[in-house]
């Protein structure tokens, strides 16, 4: 089943066209990796899919689980089952991590027509997911991402993903800032969620992450377009040769 279908997507940010005709289809159960040089438009693609203000779609369409994704508000997209793990998670002083998680989970459940989790059930779920990700309970009391180290922020993204159990998770460089052990833990969190009804779009610069989260399909994105699509071997090839072939620059 096609979960996400992106057709000829063009988008502008800051008055500049960054996405120049993206075509991409992701089926339920698949893991897709998107690789590409700095500034090629990977984060832009993820923000456009999540509905960030300021990212203007000028052409094309996106169908997600049978819905016209671009007509939905960010919160409706989340409720439908889209999740973006941010490349740069945002700090929210004054809102504790646990309040944030609880508010998010109950908002999503409400929009999905599910009944609210009882407080004990919520706490149990939170505890279980935190243990899986090797996180310290102390951070629940702290403001969302406030004073978190780079790695802690990425774990927090993984925690939110685990709690919200999305249909499609976009991981924007979730590996950057993680040490080797943390990388394994976070990849373990992703793999625990993998099943036939769920899909992942993993944005990364490095093969290392893909050693732990094995992709089914790899895309190369440069200059706002998917230049090539292949199997896992494409990532290894990029690791050796770089992007010269796609950017027109000498290697």
């Amino acid at each position, binding site marked *: 089943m096609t979960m996400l279908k992106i057709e000829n997507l063009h988008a502008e940010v800051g008055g500049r066209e960054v996405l120049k005709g993206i075509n991409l289809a992701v089926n339920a159960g698949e893991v897709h990796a998107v690789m590409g040089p700095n500034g090629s438009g990977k984060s832009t693609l993820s923000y456009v899919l999540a509905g960030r203000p300021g990212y203007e779609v000028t052409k094309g369409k996106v169908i997600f689980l049978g819905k016209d994704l671009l007509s939905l508000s960010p*919160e409706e997209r989340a409720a439908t089952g889209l999740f973006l793990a941010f490349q740069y998670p945002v700090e929210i002083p004054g809102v504790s991590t646990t309040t944030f998680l609880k508010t998010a989970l109950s908002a999503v459940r409400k*929009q999905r027509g599910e009944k609210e989790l009882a407080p004990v059930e919520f706490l149990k779920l939170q505890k279980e997911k935190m243990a899986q990700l090797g996180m310290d309970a102390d951070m629940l009391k702290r403001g969302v991402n406030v004073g978190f180290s780079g790695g802690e922020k990425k774990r927090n993204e993984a925690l939110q993903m685990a709690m919200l159990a999305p249909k499609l998770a976009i991981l924007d460089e979730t590996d950057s800032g993680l040490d080797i052990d943390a990388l394994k833990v976070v990849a373990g969190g992703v793999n625990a969620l993998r099943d036939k009804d769920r899909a992942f779009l993993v944005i990364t610069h490095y093969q290392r992450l893909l050693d732990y989260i094995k992709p089914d399909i790899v895309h190369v994105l440069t200059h706002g377009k998917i230049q090539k699509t292949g199997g896992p071997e494409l990532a290894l090839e990029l690791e050796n040769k770089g992007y010269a072939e796609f950017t027109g620059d000498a290697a």
Partner: protein
Amino acid sequence: MKFSLQQQAADEATLPWLEDAQKLGEQPAADWVKAMRHTGAEAFSRTGLPTPSWEGWQHTHLRPLTQTRFHYKVEPVKFDINALPSSLLKDAARIVLVNGQYKPELSATPEGVIVMSLMDASVQVEGIEEHLVTVGDLATAPFKALNAAYMHDGAVIIVKDGADITQPLEVLFYNAGDADKAPSLQPRCLYWLGKNSGLTVFERHAGVGAYFTNIYTGIFLESASRLKFYKIEEESAAACHFSYTVLQQQKHSSFEGFSYAAGGRLVRQEYQNLLIDSGISCNVSGVYLLKDQQCHDFTVLTDHFEPDGTSVQHFKGVIDDQARSVFQGKIHVRRVAQKTNGNQLNHALLLSEKAEASFKPELEIYADDVKCSHGAASGQLDQDALFYLQSRGIPATEAKSLLIESFLNGALAEVSFAPAREVYEERIREWLGH
């Protein structure tokens, strides 16, 4: 009473006020009360209302006050007893003032606290005069002068030496006005805490219709006494509220004041905190939530006379629509007041393009060994944070509320009494539309 009505200062709006005051001046009272009325009326007739050219009045314009004819009445007010809001807290005692007049029949007093009307206290309580006089120069404070001119309504609350009152006391000012006979209310109140005593007060101002309330509150904290003073200003949308609180603190006393301001059309809450001895702690903080055409002004002076004092002024405000806020805060540290610790912080969140916040933060320090700071800023909601919350499924309005609540929590953290924090949180949520 004889005083000359000085037409050059009094205008169309205020001349009737002086005529009312002149009538009131004839009401029987102790000689010193009559003298205070006289001095007040005379001072007001000389100055009239402050104008924008006055120091401290640049940003708060009084048009809503002069547009309506407000009249003072000495007769007991008729009102619908069922309209009184229910008590704030289940286990608190409550005293009620209706249009400034103390209503013993509607009031209950916690054990160990003496409450009486201003006029009764003026003849019955020994040494009350020095606690009821207006502090400061009337020539620069027309609202103080006006209140003195009408000295008649209000209440006196006294806690004896050593009494530690655990039951909170709600002091409800319920004001009923209407458009054609909008009342002018001029109550004077006194909180007088004896040595080493303690009290927790919720002072709540609420009402219906149009009225002008101008309150003078004296707070006397004798040595080592402790007052928690939680104010809730939720006046009717058409009301003008002016309040002048003069706090006089003695050695080792502590004052924890917090003010929630969300009501009224035009409101100015002014504090003058006089820390006249050493080792005093004084916290005057608050939140303001404004919308429509509301205008609200907090003007706070904290004056450290002696060493080892700690003071805080911590305010957070949320301003929507075309509302305007003014914050004028000053910490004054006199030459001998070494080891003073003074902090002032004011932040306003502007929710609309037409919302406005003016700040005048000041430190005036003459001692050399002090720790003082101030900061003031206004900003908008953090759009990145908003998107982050939405991307987790939290609807935009709820996400905004969450950010606003967390912003206000910064000031609410100054409130040490949990039931008070809950009262404030509930009102904030209500204001946000939950």
